[in-house]
């Protein structure tokens, strides 16, 4: 089945992973900017990273017929350095009109601190002023519930934001409801230990329906599985769900959400002629 992985960090993966994804039916990926495993020391470090995301990764993905899209920000783990964060936020507009840039992300909270909140709000300001879509990281494990509620507070306070253009990612059983009820998109991340399994993601689709729901691998440099979305597809099939429902979640929903971004110029595989 054709699918789109709406959240995967391909800079951390080898080229063979692109080939595997293509063989599994992946037609497009979207790659939010995130933490490299160490704190970068300067705005130029981020500028180089954004060049990698907007120039080289689309090329590498293209070798296997995969369309590559991206989101730009300084992530929550590095947001404790507020002065560097402000330099990066000021630099981001240099890249916003590059092909394949979908918006601001993945912004959010990590340990739910004051500095993270300040930098999150300044990213929201940038997104509102530049009319960009937003992709949001919610914290891990015990910090997820309070952090998600704090993020929703900040989002709902900002009346400039169109909630249908905001994706709140890494939802689990205790956070998906408030995200969907507030009118945002919800992303479920399939990780081997933390976050969500394919089976639990299917449970949540069964409980909350397929509207405004996305499923991703968030494959990165840590323990993660870039082919997790096909695992979800299989889990849906084994429960007897129709192909149309599965396709809605893994293909049509990403197209609908990303289609609201001016940087999303998707070529349907159906449109390719030989």
């Amino acid at each position, binding site marked *: 089945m054709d699918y789109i992985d709406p959240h995967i960090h391909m800079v951390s993966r080898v080229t063979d992973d692109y080939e595997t994804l293509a063989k599994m039916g992946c037609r497009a990926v979207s790659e939010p900017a995130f933490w490299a495993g160490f704190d970068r020391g300067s705005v130029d470090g981020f500028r180089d990273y954004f060049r990698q995301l907007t120039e080289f990764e689309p090329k590498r993905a293209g070798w296997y017929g995969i369309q590559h899209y991206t989101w730009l920000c300084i992530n929550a783990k590095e947001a404790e350095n507020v002065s560097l964060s402000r330099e990066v936020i000021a630099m981001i507009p240099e890249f916003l009109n590059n092909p394949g840039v979908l918006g601001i992300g993945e912004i959010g909270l990590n340990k739910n601190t*004051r500095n993270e909140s300040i930098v999150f*709000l300044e990213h929201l300001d940038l997104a509102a002023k530049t009319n960009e879509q937003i992709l949001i990281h919610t914290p891990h494990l015990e910090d997820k*519930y309070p952090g998600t509620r704090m993020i929703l507070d900040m989002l709902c*306070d900002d009346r400039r934001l169109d909630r249908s253009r905001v994706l709140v990612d890494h939802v689990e059983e205790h956070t998906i409801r408030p995200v969907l009820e507030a009118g945002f998109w919800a992303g479920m991340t399939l990780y081997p230990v933390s976050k969500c399994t394919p089976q639990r993601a299917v449970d949540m689709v069964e409980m909350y*329906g397929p509207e405004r729901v996305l499923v991703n691998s968030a494959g990165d440099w840590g323990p993660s599985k870039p082919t997790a979305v096909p695992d979800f597809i299989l889990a849906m099939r084994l*429960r007897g769900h129709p192909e149309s429902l599965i396709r809605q979640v893994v293909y049509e929903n990403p197209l609908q959400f990303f289609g609201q971004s001016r940087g999303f110029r998707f070529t349907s595989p159906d449109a390719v002629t030989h």
Partner: protein
Amino acid sequence: MSASVAASEVLNREFLEIRARVLEVAAALDRIDRASGSVKTDQRCGRIDRALAALAQSGPGRAERVQMIFSLPYQEDWQSEFAIEQRR
């Protein structure tokens, strides 16, 4: 969305998986008991105990309840505590 599936069918599908996972939890707790020292006062053990008790409760929503047991609380007044201006 899954209401048309019979509970017996779901049990047939899930029984061995549940059995295996319960055994994994039991074995992990045994491993802690066999180790030297005590972790009885570690708050994580209290959370594990409460999560296991939540599994034994009937009715839906177990996964959400277990998630909340392993979560820190949300403070509604966090913005004033952080001196962050609300933008309403």
